[in-house]
């Protein structure tokens, strides 16, 4: 699937997502409490959250209507158009999903394994997932971890997480 087809033929879900998001924000806006020492002329802290939620929901409704209008006028289903083989698309999506999954595991595990070990393992795994040969992946990961540790850990004195193993920096 090419980038242009991803861009041109959107799924039309944006309008619905916006409305759901706006409703969620409106729901949680009820918890906003003023502290009681404000000025009567101040519209209050709820003005922007509530006002913007309503506007965004309205925008979502317009978006749904616009999609429906285009769909009925063109007579085509608005959907993702495959320009390359379905298998290639599926593989790329799986790879992207696995990449984000690995990324999430990396950042969630970092407080426990530490930055050094986490980055070494994660960067190597990610590059191998992206079909970089393992030797190159490992070499680049080691170099990357070293550079980042020297730069941020030693030069800028950023206290990078050391994890339960207490690895350097």
């Amino acid at each position, binding site marked *: 699937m090419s980038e242009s087809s991803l861009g041109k033929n959107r799924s039309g879900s944006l309008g619905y997502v916006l409305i759901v998001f706006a409703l969620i924000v409106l729901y949680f806006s009820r918890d906003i409490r003023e502290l009681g020492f404000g*000025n009567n002329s101040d*519209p209050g802290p709820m*003005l922007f959250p509530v006002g913007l939620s309503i506007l965004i929901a309205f925008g979502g409704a317009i978006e749904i209507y616009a999609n429906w209008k285009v769909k009925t006028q063109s007579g085509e289903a608005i959907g993702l158009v495959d320009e390359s083989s379905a298998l290639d698309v599926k593989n*790329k999506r799986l790879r*992207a999903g696995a990449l984000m999954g690995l990324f999430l595991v990396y950042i969630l595990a970092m407080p426990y394994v530490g930055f050094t070990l986490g980055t070494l393992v994660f960067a190597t795994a990610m590059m191998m997932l*992206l*079909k970089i040969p393992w030797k190159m992946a490992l070499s680049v990961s080691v170099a990357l971890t070293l550079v980042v540790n020297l730069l941020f850990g030693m030069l800028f004195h950023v206290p990078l997480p050391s994890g339960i193993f207490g690895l350097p920096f």
Partner: protein
Amino acid sequence: MISDLLQFHVLVPWLLAMLFGIFVGATPGLTATMAVALIVPVSFYMPDPNTGLAMIIGVSFTAIFAGDIPATYLRIPGTPASAAATLDGHQLAKQGRGGFALMIDLFCSSIGGLIGVGLLILIAPQLARFALRFSNFEYFWLAIFGLSMSAVVSSGNTLRGLISAGLGILLATVGLDIVSGAQRFTFGNAELMSGFGFIPVMIGLFGVSEVIRSVLSSPSTSESAIKTTASKDSIWEVLKTIWSKKLTVLKSSVAGTVIGALPGAGADIAAWAAYGMEQRTSKDKESFGKGAIAGVIAPTSANNAAVGGAWIPALVFGIPGDAVTAIVLGAFMMYEIKPGPLIFQQNPEQVHSIFLIALITQFLLLPCGYIGLKTFGWILRLPRNVVMVAVLVFSVVGAYSLRNSLFDVYLVAGFGLVGFYLESQKAPLAPLILGLILGPMVEENLRTGLIKTEGDLTPFFTRPICAVLVLILAAAFLAPVVLSWIRKRVQV
């Protein structure tokens, strides 16, 4: 005096500091503010005060330029002021003309900086007096003006641009309400009390989402990160191109200086405003966002010019134009330079030194920037997927380094997914970023203004500067409609 500044013991630390500024500014997560903050203590060890001043001033200009390098090559702004440069600069990089775009960027940054400093020298007192007349009402409309540019930059899709801007303003409401102190959407989480940090959101939206998109579209693992072509675009071509757009450079630099002179409005707002203005007045609007040269020239001239503009209220009234200038002012006081109305009478030699240093810095920016471009360009010859992994790692550590908090890293991941989804739905990200920056300015000034007027909205429209801003806004939105109507009438 120039000969004093060009001494070896001044020039070498000055150049090294500027290279440091290039490096920090080009690293997403490390801001220009951080670059200046880090160089200040080092500058105090210099035996000559001019050396210290030169280091500090040099870093502030180069860090702003350097943010355009990853913005162009990787679509990750190195500093907030470079977010506008991602729009057309990155498109040019995808076409194999990243080097050309950045050379234009470098020269325009230098020219913009020269114009900004030149204007600073010529009209500092007058501009500072004008800036002081801005109150809550004027700042409200200025922020609305900046946000309206978001509808402009998302050309052809005003609705989604406005929705995106609204989302940005909504995100900016998270945290403690600055007017009443109420907690909004914090869910009892201490990290959320200060709201969503701009840098992690920006890294996620532009950086991580770009990595996901790159994986989905990448045809080959061995393809290098950026296409490089044989160097057909010589410096002569670069200069010819800039000369052909000299009006754009001039307009954007002047606009950048004026906006930079407004306290609280920094290089990032200047860059967006200049981009929006240029697109709006261009005869070739459709090319913006697809690699338009003017789309590179406008924001890059403006953001460096704004650095000079920010010095206007800083030197004359001691009011810093932005965070970078605030740190520099603090450093000045350590050098016993007291900004204020009497500075030109009490410390004329120091003021002249500062002006000269700022001017010479714009010329030194060229070799330092060139070295930065070449170094970064070499790095990007590595396989694309290797660079993408490095981008993710730097995104993580860059976000973490802001507050030593993993929460910011979680924000990067979350907004990476949000950014990817929004762009897949053709919703532009630029207005969202603008909404996040300007949302607090809009809300605070609206509510504070209403408190001052006891709920009366009239001053928002009747104050002279407000009236002018409202008219400009109305013209910006109505003019294309009216012009289109007139054209149709003429054709009939």
